[in-house]
């Protein structure tokens, strides 16, 4: 077990890679009541074309299956794992993103027992035809719930605009039609391919004794007979650099219009420090352009084009990435035009000063301190970073090293008319 110290943050992290390939990380947090643990596989909604374990040909699986699998893993022959956790005073949950599926619990007592339950339930699937059918009703209602949610529709609408081939353009939960094709055999095929320990990461954060916890995990894994796993083969169609669609307008049952402008990212093949630097630089750039202290934000607010729902965000993963900015608006056309102008103007050098950059970096450093108050943030983000060969605790030093030159060249390169797209939700009949 290696121990890594982060002196400035006064944190220490313990790590070991087990013989079966599982990466285990433990971050002791004194003073907290809660222990939070996530067990995550590098498998999400975009992994829909791959060579199943033991086979040689690529298959394409039904949309929404990674998320369906996440639901079904909680069900066992003798009942529901939620019950087991709550008997042990824990609360359990799971989520599926584009690139990850995470199972988690938090508890303030019986941590060892709950950890054992977490590892075992994820590593002992039980799928049956009957329970698969029953789940279709429940997930069907989850899908319908999102269908009525204008912010979700807007977000996915924009991704559809940006991406033509890449499966990031498919809703994580799939559709009622696509999940109707899911069978227990499909679930086992996905499970066997993606849930090998060498494709997973276990993170435990809380008032724990790292040696004891690590020994427990090792003993648990030593009892299980995992064969060495060949490398997983995923397939993605070639994706053009430009946005697939310039614009989409959706009519919905709303009273307030919404508008998001997106930029399709470049360099989505990056990993490690290069990716960390790129991602943080992009985040600082967006803060400078659209943060509450920016001239742009204040002009838009003064002109009545945005309100407090206005936000911006950058996402980058292997194979896809996008920046988004926008929110509720009284005039979606004008807001789209203004945001596009502001983005294009940011390409020209000299619009950002050293002082502004220093402030923006301070703001990000403070935000990072706030974030690491949260065990959830640490576990989930650490895992995401690790799957992309980055280290969460490199954030502050990397931020400190961003120069004005970095910001300007990224703006110059990234912002480009043919990679920009607009998505709007407007009231029906307008």
């Amino acid at each position, binding site marked *: 077990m290696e121990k890594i110290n982060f002196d*400035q*943050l*006064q944190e220490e992290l313990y790590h070991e890679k087990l013989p079966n390939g599982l990466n285990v990380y433990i971050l002791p*947090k004194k*003073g*907290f*009541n*809660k222990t939070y643990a996530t067990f995550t596989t590098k498998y999400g909604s975009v992994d829909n074309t791959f060579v199943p374990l033991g086979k040689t040909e690529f298959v394409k699986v039904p949309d929404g299956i990674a998320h369906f699998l996440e639901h079904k893993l909680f069900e066992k022959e003798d009942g*529901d794992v*939620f*019950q087991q956790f*709550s*008997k*042990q*005073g*824990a*609360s359990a949950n799971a989520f599926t993103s584009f690139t990850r599926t995470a199972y988690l619990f*938090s*508890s*303030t*007592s019986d941590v060892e027992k709950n950890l054992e339950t977490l590892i075992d339930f994820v590593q002992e699937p039980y799928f049956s035809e009957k329970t698969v059918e*029953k789940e*279709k*009703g*429940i*997930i069907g*209602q*989850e899908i*319908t*719930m999102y*269908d*009525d*949610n204008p912010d979700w529709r807007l977000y996915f609408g924009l991704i559809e605009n940006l991406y033509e081939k890449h499966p990031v353009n498919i809703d994580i939960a799939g559709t009622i039609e696509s999940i109707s094709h899911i069978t227990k055999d499909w679930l086992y095929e996905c499970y066997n391919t993606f849930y090998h320990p060498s494709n997973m990461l276990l993170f435990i954060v809380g008032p724990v004794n790292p040696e004891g916890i690590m020994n427990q995990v090792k003993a648990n894994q030593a009892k299980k007979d995992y064969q060495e796993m060949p490398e997983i083969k995923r397939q993605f169609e070639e994706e053009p650099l430009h946005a697939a669609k310039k614009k989409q307008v959706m009519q919905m*049952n*709303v*009273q*307030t219009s919404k508008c998001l402008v997106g930029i399709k990212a470049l360099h989505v093949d990056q990993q490690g420090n290069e990716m960390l630097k790129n991602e943080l630089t992009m985040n600082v750039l967006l803060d400078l352009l659209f*943060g*509450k*202290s*920016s*001239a742009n934000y*204040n002009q838009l607010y*003064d002109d*009545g084009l945005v*309100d*407090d*729902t206005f936000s911006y965000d950058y996402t980058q993963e292997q194979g896809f990435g996008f920046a988004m900015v926008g929110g*509720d608006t009284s005039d979606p056309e004008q807001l789209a035009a203004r945001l596009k102008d502001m983005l294009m103007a940011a390409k020209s050098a000299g619009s950002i000063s050293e002082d502004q950059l220093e*402030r923006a970096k*301070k*703001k990000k*450093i*403070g*935000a990072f*301190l*706030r974030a690491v*108050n*949260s*065990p959830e943030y640490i576990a989930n983000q650490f895992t995401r970073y690790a799957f992309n060969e980055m280290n969460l605790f490199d954030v502050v030093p990397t931020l400190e090293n961003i120069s004005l030159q970095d910001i300007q060249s990224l703006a110059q390169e990234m912002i480009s008319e043919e990679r920009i797209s607009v998505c709007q939700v407007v009231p029906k009949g307008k």
Partner: protein
Amino acid sequence: MIAVSEKITEMPGYKLHVIETDKYKTNTIVWRMKAPLDKENVTKRALLPHVLQSSSAKYPTTTALRSYLDELYGATLYVDLAKKGEYHIISFLIEIANEKFLSDPSPLLRKGFELLTEILTNPHKSGSGFEPGTIEKEKRTLKQRIQSVYDDKMRYSNVRLIEEMCKGEPYALQVNGEAEDVEAITPENLYEYYQHAFSEDEMDLYVVGDVKEEEVKSFASELLKFENRTPKDTNGRESNQKENVHEVKENQDVKQGKLNIGYRTNIKYGDPDYFALQVFNGIFGGFSHSKLFINVREKASLAYYAASRLESHKGLMMVMSGIDNNNYDQAVKIINEQMEAMKKGDFSDEELTQTKAVIRNQILETIDTSRGLLELLYHNVVAHTEINLDAWLTGMENATKEEIVAVADKISLDTIYFLTGTEAGK
């Protein structure tokens, strides 16, 4: 024993609450103001904190103020409005880095206090009112904020349930005020209300973090001084109980129906049976092992979510579930059956133990975050009680099956609200 020590000091016009802990890398400062909910002032109260946080005399534009916050290592400043029982509560929240985790060691806590003081007591004025441009912008945003509830159907259906259920009671007022009352607000009458609120509201200052009580006290007594007052109380028992169950169906263009059911628990925070009510809610619908989740979702496959929650100071319990438009009768029937089962004491010792364990866990987790801790502690301000967290945990632990059944007997179904797709409405 849980190690939370809340040190309370009477200050001029407010109470100071200091919670010293070295758990966090930031310090949190929260200013709360509480007054009875009423139609006349609710919209002004909803606007006021947004006006105050947008600029001040020293930082006369949002850009100036927000740039200063960025400079303070991205200190956050935001405001929040809440209804607790028949009270309307305004919060100002500042979270600021603890410099011991930064490479730059200049102290930040005092700056946080100075900033709060500036926001609360030195607003951007013009003549005898607030700066008119700010008022115009914030009125526009407030209207949009009120309107946007309609677009979030989960929230909308909850608001509609409360409107229908509590018609004629102050609790039916919306937390962000009433759209039709925004226009009449002027820079002058809002300024008058601002002075009124700071002289009559019950005010509390909370500071959580790796701080020294003495230092916090000296900052507070130097910077924040107000007139003493006797806070206004509501009579607190305004409740229009109905003879019959009120059933409301509303048609809209939605794919998923939203079923929201309101009950009167007739029990409030501070009542002797409040802890038994917490356990009741846990067995009935609070968690993923509860009767609602198991029967509506897991057994009948009708919903993705089916849960209940309490409003502790008003004495309400709300059930919410998203279901297919055609499954209304079946869902209502199943939910009613679960309530009947509770009234008959039809729950096992295992369900009881399990629920207590999960609630205990939930409370301990809540106090791991500074905001969660403040929410729990603030209950005592609203209810004028002095229940510490140990008493809370013990009270819940000791709740017996008989007490829970007695609680169930006090609970009455009041209103069933269903937001349904146009197809089913035809």
